[in-house]
Structures are given as structure tokens and as C-alpha cells.
């Protein structure tokens, strides 16, 4: 390819402008940091945090380091995102099926739900759940008893927790192996029933193994003004998950509907003329093709949901933004470093997922002949 001198010059100019801009920013930042007696660096991650995390999955005390705090709130972000994704998918599929119903009332109820939820801000929904619903719940002494020993009160959702015996870890490993092995066996066993039976039995048996390693179940009990025992899901997390998953579910519902309707009509007609029943045509012809249309769009919704966990900062859920762009930044004054860490982590999640999806899409793409 020919490269004209003009092209070279204009590209050099772009690079020069970028370099100048970068130089200006670093220079200003250096001056401003010097004014405040700060320097740039990540050593502060080793320093004592000095604050406590209201909700954590792994041990954390004020004596832990900032670096450990980063990991703890990263886990909290992942937890909110993971729960949100599961709930959003279930609700979204439900709403999507309702949107496709032949029944006019069912179809339009779903439409009304979709329109109301997607036309109101996500942040408003999270705050609404937190302030107007969860904080209006009864106090612990009058908590709502839910089936299975769970209790819902203004302090959050108290779940019974399981105490595991010494065999829990090996049992969990067996379960993990079984879960990996089962789909593979299922695919291998296209013609052999025994393999398919094994594919079904393996996860069930290993799950039973895990269940047997449980030594006791601890139920939440009221002591004084609060509950002890069991696992506490704080109202902040409930609000974030409720807000995020409801909001995302309506988009998933629309994607589901669009993908099913996007499968060419001829495919369904061909299936029924080959003598397939309605269910066979749905599961063997329509869904496999619709899934290929769905997956990239749904992944982008999952990514949006993950990014939106940052809205947890509005209800003080201790996730990345709340802790690092809030508490840590205010305490240490490390504004540039904290923001770089938070944005870098989100960017990393995003780029990794996109890379994985590109690979996956190439793998499942229908090869047109």
C-alpha cells in the first residue's frame, strides 16, 4: 500500500497532539500533587485500612490493608453482579415467554411491565427498593417469617446457614469435576443411553455427597434487638440486586422475544412439514438458532449489569466504587490511583468478556454453505 507524505504528516500531528495533551496532564497533576504533599504510587495499598466493611464475604478488619480492601469489595461487586445476572435471566426468560403468549391479557401485561421498568431510571429503582420498600419493613422483633426459616426485616434477609464438616472440601471438588464432566458425557452419549444416565447421575450423586458433609444447619434467632446465627443478606445488597435484575430482565425479555421472532418463519414451517411436533420444532429448530442470536446481546446486558453494580454506591453497598472512589479515596487522598484501579478493574472485566465472547461467537457461528 502506498503511503503518501501527507498521510504521514497528518498521523504524526495526531500523535504529537496526543503526546502534548498527555504531557500537559501529567505536568499539571505533578504540580497539584506536589502542592498537596502527595506523590503518585501504589504503595498505599499495603497500608492499614482503618475502616470496617459493613458486608464482606471473606474476613476483613480495620487492621487489614487497602489492598485487601480492594479484593474484598471486588468480591462484593462480583457477588452483586452474579446474583443480579441469575435473577435477571430467570425473570427475563419468564417475561419473554409471557411476551410471546397467544393470550392477549398475558402478552400485554408483560408489555406494560417492560415499558414501565425500562422507561424509569435504574438508579431511581434501586433507591426506591432501598428507601421505600426495604426500609419500610418491620423491625427485627416483628420480622416476616419466610418459608425455610428465612426472616425478612428492616435489617435485611436472614438466611439459615450450613455448617460444613471436614469432608466438605473434597466433596466440593468432586462436585466441580462432576459438573465439568456431565455435559461432556451427555454429548458423547448421543447413541448410548448408559452414558447419558451417567451424565445425569454424576452431578446428583456428588451433590448428595456435599449435602452429607453438612454437620448442622444454623437458623437465625432473635437476641435482643437483632438476629444472631445464620447468614445475613444486608438490605443494601437486596436493593442493588432487585433494582439491577428487574431492570435488566426487561431487556433480556425483549432480546428473547426478538430472537425467537427473528428465526425465519420458513424454518418453523419446514419443521412442521417434516412432521415435528410444536415442542420438537421449538427445541430442535427454533431455540438453537434463536440462542445464537441471543447470546451476544444478552452478554452485553450482563456486562451492563456488572457495570451498573457501581450504583450500589447510592445505597452504600460496599462495592468497588463506594469503597475505593469513596472511603479509601477520602482517607488516603490517592484520587488518581483509586480511580485508575476502579476503572481498570471494570475495563478488565469488560475486555476479558468481550474477548471470550468473540471466541465463542466464532465457535458457534452457523457456517453458511
Amino acid at each position, binding site marked *: 500500500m502506498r503511503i503518501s507524505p501527507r*498521510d504521514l504528516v*497528518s*498521523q504524526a500531528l*495526531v*500523535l504529537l497532539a*496526543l503526546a502534548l495533551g498527555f504531557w500537559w*496532564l501529567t505536568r*499539571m*497533576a505533578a*504540580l*497539584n*500533587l506536589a*502542592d498537596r504533599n502527595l506523590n503518585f504510587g501504589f504503595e498505599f495499598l499495603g497500608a492499614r485500612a482503618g475502616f470496617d466493611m459493613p458486608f464482606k464475604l471473606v474476613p476483613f478488619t480495620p487492621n487489614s490493608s487497602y489492598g485487601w480492601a480492594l479484593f474484598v469489595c471486588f468480591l462484593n461487586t462480583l457477588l452483586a453482579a452474579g446474583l443480579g445476572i441469575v435473577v435477571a435471566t430467570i425473570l427475563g426468560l419468564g417475561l419473554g415467554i409471557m411476551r410471546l*403468549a*397467544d*393470550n*392477549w*391479557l*398475558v402478552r400485554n*401485561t408483560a408489555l406494560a411491565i417492560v*415499558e*414501565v421498568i425500562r*422507561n*424509569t*431510571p*435504574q*438508579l*431511581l*429503582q434501586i*433507591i*426506591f427498593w432501598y*428507601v*421505600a420498600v426495604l*426500609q*419500610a419493613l418491620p423491625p427485627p422483633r416483628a420480622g416476616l417469617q419466610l418459608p425455610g426459616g428465612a426472616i425478612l426485616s428492616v435489617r435485611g434477609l436472614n438466611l439459615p446457614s450450613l455448617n460444613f464438616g471436614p469432608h466438605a472440601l473434597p466433596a466440593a471438588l468432586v462436585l466441580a469435576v462432576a459438573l465439568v464432566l456431565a455435559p461432556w458425557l451427555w454429548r458423547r452419549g448421543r447413541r448410548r443411553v448408559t452414558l447419558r444416565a451417567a451424565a445425569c447421575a454424576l452431578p446428583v450423586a456428588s451433590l448428595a455427597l456435599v449435602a452429607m458433609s453438612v454437620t448442622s444447619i444454623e437458623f437465625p434467632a432473635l437476641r435482643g434487638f437483632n438476629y444472631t446465627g445464620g447468614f445475613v443478606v444486608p438490605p443494601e445488597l437486596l436493593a442493588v440486586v432487585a433494582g439491577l435484575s428487574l431492570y435488566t430482565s426487561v431487556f433480556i425479555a425483549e432480546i428473547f422475544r426478538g430472537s425467537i421472532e427473528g428465526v425465519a418463519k420458513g424454518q418453523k414451517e419446514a419443521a412442521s412439514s417434516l412432521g415435528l411436533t410444536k415442542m420438537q420444532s421449538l427445541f430442535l429448530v427454533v431455540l438453537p438458532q434463536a440462542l445464537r442470536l441471543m447470546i451476544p446481546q444478552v452478554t452485553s446486558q450482563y456486562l451492563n449489569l456488572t*457495570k*451498573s453494580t*457501581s*450504583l450500589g*454506591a*447510592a445505597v452504600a453497598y460496599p462495592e468497588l*466504587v463506594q469503597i475505593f*472512589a469513596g472511603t479509601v*479515596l477520602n482517607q488516603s487522598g490517592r*484520587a*488518581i490511583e483509586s*480511580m485508575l484501579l*476502579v*476503572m481498570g478493574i*471494570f*475495563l478488565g472485566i*469488560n*475486555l476479558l468478556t468481550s474477548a471470550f465472547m468473540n471466541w465463542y461467537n466464532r465457535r458457534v457461528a452457523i457456517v453458511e454453505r
Partner: protein
Amino acid sequence: MTAAGWIKRNLFATWWSSILTLLMVALFGIVIPPLLQWAITNATISGTTRSACTDTGACWTFIKVRLDLFFYGLYPSPERWRVHAAFLLLIVSTVLTLKAPMRYQALAGLTLLVLVPVTAGVLLVGGVLGLPYVPTNAWGGLMLNVLLTVVAGVGGFILGIVLALGRRSRLPVVRWVSVCYIELWRGVPLLTVLFMAMLLVPLFMPRGVTVDNLVRAMLALTLFTGAYMAEIVRGGLQAIPRGQVEAATALGLRPWKVQLFIVLPQALRLVIPGVANTIIDLFKDTTLVSIVGLFDLLGVVNQAQKDQAWLGMAREGYAFAAAVFFLSCLLMSMLSRMAEQQGPDKAKHRA
């Protein structure tokens, strides 16, 4: 079709469908009456104090006495005509641009992009031409959401066009800079961008230079929206057949003229739905500024429901805000559908 026939076909076609219909009706029977009771039958709207309200229904009095606050924040009431004038100007010029004959549309669009923001800015800020100065920290409520949407929408659209063209440039440096910019902003949450604008902009400014909080939020929203707009516009650019570029080049047009007069006008018409969706998302996302200390509609409601004299009004406040956003977004998507169908040579194009 008779009514009975319609009902039979759409609600009671099969036994399964009949069960669903009955279930839905039962569900409505459980949910709707208490809701109506709360929102309408038992609700209060008279009076000006908390004592006018009952415990069983909604207290719309709370909304009534704060309506001005919810719409304008602390913008002084004798000056509010300026807010109205600015938005009226915006609406009139948008309609004129869309309705203008094809040959004037570019001119009208340019006016919309340059003249209107300047005039509106002067109107809102004041301090010149005998208009009293209104500091931006007095701006608030829904007015702030609309303002941020307009600024970031227009700014982001222009930025998006530049980035989309950059991403398709034949110069690798330009292409890579555009790609990096777009992917970077699309990979991080808007809230972190807002935090960055609030916390880091002062660090990157020369000594003694301060940037207004509202301007920082506008900057963050614009840069963020630009990345999303770029992807939308790129979709439109890709849809223009190569023959258009080749024909224009064969006619002797220079490359920038090919883009400006042949490709862009066609591409931009194609992306109206996408742009409208982005603007609706942007409008909803402007509520995020309430987290970084600006008082948009959501921020004002957050503040108002903490008022000691009006405790327990959270539901009313958030229901009101939700209704305002819902109606605005619905209106916007209807307008975009109209604009989409209105394209001047749509019929010719399709034929």
C-alpha cells in the same frame, strides 16, 4: 370481528389460555384495588402541611408544595421564564430542523448545534443584557436532567460522528486512537466517569483554575455519550453501499466532501432510532449526577424525603419522579418514531 369472537380467540382459545386469563384477572384483583386506593381514593392533595394527610393513602400534598423545587431546583422564581424560554427555543428549533425542506435542513441543523446552545446558555446563566446572574448551584430538579441530556446529547452526537469517521479512517493512527477511545469509555461505568470528572479534573487544572461542578458533569456525560454515539453512527456508515462513495468520487468530489455531502446525510437518517435510544438512556442516566452532589430531580427527591416535617414520604416522592421519567421517555420514543417515518425521501428510497 364481534367482541365475543375477539374475546374467545384472544383470551379463551384453549383451556390453558383460559386458566391463564383467570389467573391474571385474579392477580389484578389482588394488586390493583389496594394500589388505586392508595394512589387515588384515600389520597390527599389539599392543604399545605403534613397534618392534611391520612395514613392510609398517598400524600400528594407533599408533591404539590414542592412542585417548583422538583422542576427547577432553587432557580429563583421571578427568573423561571428564562428556563421556559430556553427550552422553548430548543423545541422550536428542533421541530424546524426536522420539518425544514431538504435544502435548508443542513443550515437549520447547524443553527441548532451552534446558535441555540449559546443563546440558551446566556439565558440560563445571565449576568449580561440586564439578566440577573443565577449561579449553577441553584439549578436543579427536572430542569437539570433535561439540560444535561441536551448538552451531552448534542455534544456526544458531534463527538460520535467524529469518532465514527475516525474509526473508519484509512490512517491507522487515527483509527486506533478512535477505537481505544470508544472501547475505553464503553468499558467503564458512567458513575466512575462522573467521579473522575468531580475528583480528578481539579488535579489536572493549572493552579487557581476551577471548573464549575455542573460543567464537569456535562463534560463527563458528553465524553461518555460520545463513545456510544460513535458505535451507533458507525452502524449507519457501514450501511451505506460502497457504490455511493465510488460514484461520488467518480464525479470528482474530494474525500471530505464525499463523507460530508454523500455518506453522512444518508447514514445519519438511518441512525435516528439508535440515536434516540441513546438519548433516552442518557436522560435516565443523568440521575447519576445525584450521587456526585448535584441536585437533579432524583437528588431533590432524595433530599425532600429526609425533611423532618415530612418524614415517610419516600413512596410519594419516588413514585412522582418515576412517573415524570416514564412519561418523558415514552414521549421521546414516540417522537423518534415520528421522526423516523418523516424522512423526506423515504418513499423514493424504499422504492
